[in-house]
């Protein structure tokens, strides 16, 4: 039995991970680990890719997700609390405004079977790998 897991590890994925490693190393040197909003984590196995993101304080229908080829885009906005004349900020650390972020996926996905969940301000999108790209299992016949 051969499990062609290497398939999704070479080529694009490898060079791209190398880039990520380099950028991480650089940001460690400068003491910064900031990324464009919203921050994402990506989980990969041979069958699917899961992207999670922390986008607290907005409704699920305010997040727009689109997939084109190997690119996944997240778009949305979070409004600031409306302030009256006699109100003042003592601290202002939370982000607000519009965001747009594009994430490169490691492989083509079945766009009709994308599953997105939004709970407690955490978005989780699972994208199954396109059938044609799935690693194939090869059975060995014994004589």
């Amino acid at each position, binding site marked *: 039995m051969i499990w062609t897991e290497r398939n999704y590890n070479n080529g694009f*994925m490898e060079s791209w*991970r190398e880039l*990520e490693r380099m950028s991480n190393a650089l940001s460690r040197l400068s003491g*910064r*680990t*900031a*990324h*464009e*909003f*919203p*921050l*994402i*984590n*990506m*989980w*990969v*196995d041979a069958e699917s*890719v*899961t992207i*999670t993101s*922390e*986008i*607290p*304080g*907005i*409704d699920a229908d305010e997040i727009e997700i689109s997939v084109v080829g190997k690119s996944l885009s997240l778009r949305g906005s979070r409004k600031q*609390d409306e*302030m*009256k004349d*006699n*109100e*003042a*900020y*003592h*601290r*202002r*650390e*939370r*982000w607000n*405004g*519009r*965001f*747009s972020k594009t*994430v490169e996926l*490691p492989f083509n996905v079945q766009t009709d079977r994308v599953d997105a969940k*939004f709970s*407690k*301000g*955490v978005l*989780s999108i*699972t994208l199954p790998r396109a059938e044609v790209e799935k690693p194939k299992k090869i059975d060995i016949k014994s004589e």
Partner: protein
Amino acid sequence: MSVTMKEIEKKEAQLREGVERTRARRVYIPSVDIIEREEDIVLVADMPGVDDKSLDIVLEKDTLTIDGRVEEAIPEGHRLAVSQYGIGDYHRVFTLSDEIDKERINATVKHGVLRLTLPKTEAVKTRKIPVRAEA
């Protein structure tokens, strides 16, 4: 493009020296907005992954402590290919002034955002003095 690019990061909480936590988790500082209004002070904190059951707000004397527990959900058999944020608990401590009516503090949480309303005591509410223009 009319999109504003923002860079953000999740800040880890610093522990006092010699202090250890019982939970082997990372701990982050939630980002907050504090808004002073006429009748009250509103504290808004971003705590994604937290809901009403996993949030503890303790007021002891003048110290307000916010603790949130987050359970990490790792998809089975997957490996982490990109990691821009860490997952962990939240912890932050504030000192309140005497001007807060501690009996009427109200807290709600929605979509991972905590909203604390701290009403001012009657004595400190700002009084507006109308100014009349003299003829």
